[in-house]
């Protein structure tokens, strides 16, 4: 912080040194009277500095950046003109007579109301233009940066929120099943509990990164289907098939599971075999994911808090993570419902 302040001060100092040197050279080059010009410039430098800071720390932020343009233009033109008149008066009546050694020779050739005063418009104008340009560019860069940061932050929190929506209905029902298994088949209860804890570990800790190895997502899928089989009365009608080599492939976490959850939510088991089919096909270019289920004839599903937003979430996530790299299609034919998701991972 302190170092930054020192650096800032040095940069401002450098700016003013540059201004004085620049104008000493510009005005002095004709007659070679660099030292006299330098003294005159130093004489009005405090006014230049005051006015420049007044402009970039008061007029610009309060009027220009707040979009009060008319006020800005009016105030700027008046203060700028007053400043030029003030500096010209100081130059003409105090600095010129005391600094120029040959003042007596040319004093009658330059009148107070002559065009020479306009020269100050140009030079002061140059100073404030340069300072304002630096200020405005910095301001613009900062606001761009802030906007970019905000955007990143927004997307991060949105992704975290979308990911965290794990279905509590599934969780509590599975716990209920494990509780039942503890009496009936302690061995299986233990295995089921381990699967559930693997799943929880995955979505609480491992699925918090932007991408995960595809194997991890497949493990999760396996656990989920296995736990669903325990819940259902005909577990064999639930099919899961995974083909292709998944090693080395990365995928955004928790993208596939909502489709499977949906299939179990709306799907009817018992009538067809397979009643729910989940197929994952991995090839070097893309991941293809097909989920098939049969719909019940009932007209309405029970409103299930925390769900129903599942698919909308996935669509949103897909458009954030794989903007032009995915195809999602859903087909309903009679009592069959089929979802196909293709993600190209190259």
């Amino acid at each position: 912080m302190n170092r930054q302040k020192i650096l800032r001060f040095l940069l401002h100092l450098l700016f003013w040194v540059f201004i004085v040197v620049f104008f000493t050279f510009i005005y002095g080059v004709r007659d070679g009277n660099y030292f006299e010009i330098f003294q005159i410039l130093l004489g009005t430098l405090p006014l230049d500095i005051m006015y420049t800071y007044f402009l970039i720390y008061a007029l610009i932020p309060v009027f220009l950046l707040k979009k009060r343009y008319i006020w800005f233009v009016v105030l700027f033109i008046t203060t700028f003109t007053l400043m030029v008149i003030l500096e010209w008066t100081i130059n003409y009546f105090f600095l010129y007579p005391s600094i120029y050694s040959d003042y007596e020779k040319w004093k009658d050739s330059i009148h107070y109301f002559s065009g020479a005063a306009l020269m100050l418009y140009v030079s002061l104008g140059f100073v404030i233009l340069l300072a304002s340009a630096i200020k405005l560019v910095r301001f613009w860069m900062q606001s761009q940066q802030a906007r970019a940061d905000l955007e990143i932050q927004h997307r991060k929190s949105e992704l975290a929120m979308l990911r965290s929506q794990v279905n509590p209905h599934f969780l509590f029902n599975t716990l209920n099943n494990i509780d039942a298994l503890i009496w009936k088949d302690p061995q299986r209860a233990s295995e089921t509990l381990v699967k559930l804890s693997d799943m929880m570990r995955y979505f609480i800790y491992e699925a918090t990164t932007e991408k995960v190895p595809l194997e991890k997502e497949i493990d999760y899928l396996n656990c989920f289907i296995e736990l669903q089989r325990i819940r259902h009365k005909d577990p064999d009608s639930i099919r899961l098939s995974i083909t292709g080599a998944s090693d080395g492939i990365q995928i955004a976490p928790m993208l596939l599971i909502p489709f499977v959850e949906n299939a179990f939510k709306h799907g009817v088991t018992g009538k067809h075999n397979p009643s729910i089919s989940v197929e994952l096909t991995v090839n070097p270019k893309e991941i293809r994911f097909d989920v098939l289920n049969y719909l019940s004839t009932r007209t309405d599903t029970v409103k299930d808090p925390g769900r129903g937003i599942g698919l909308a979430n996935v669509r949103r996530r897909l458009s954030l993570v794989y903007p032009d790299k995915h195809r999602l299609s859903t087909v309903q034919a009679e009592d069959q419902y089929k979802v196909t998701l293709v993600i190209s991972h190259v």
Partner: protein
Amino acid sequence: MNVRCIIVDDEPLAIEKLAEYISRIPALELQASFNNAIQAMEFLRDHSTDLMFLDIQMDTFTGIQLLEIMRNPPKVVITTAYDSFALKGYELDVSDYLLKPI
């Protein structure tokens, strides 16, 4: 006199668990259990019961729908993983609810 009861739940393990608890209470007598609402309705057409343990989220018909279409329902205890379903149950005059895991 024993309280006769039935269980309606689409998860076999959930039924087993409730049945186990019911068997521990001498005053309760489990008549039958069903894994969907339709079977339960068919049973209740020919039989009567005092108490029904009813799951909400099931295939084809939900527990709520079953309650809505039954004319003379027995006393009902809702068994669900969602407490908001349990509250919805009170609108349909249920006696109590059990939150899963039970």
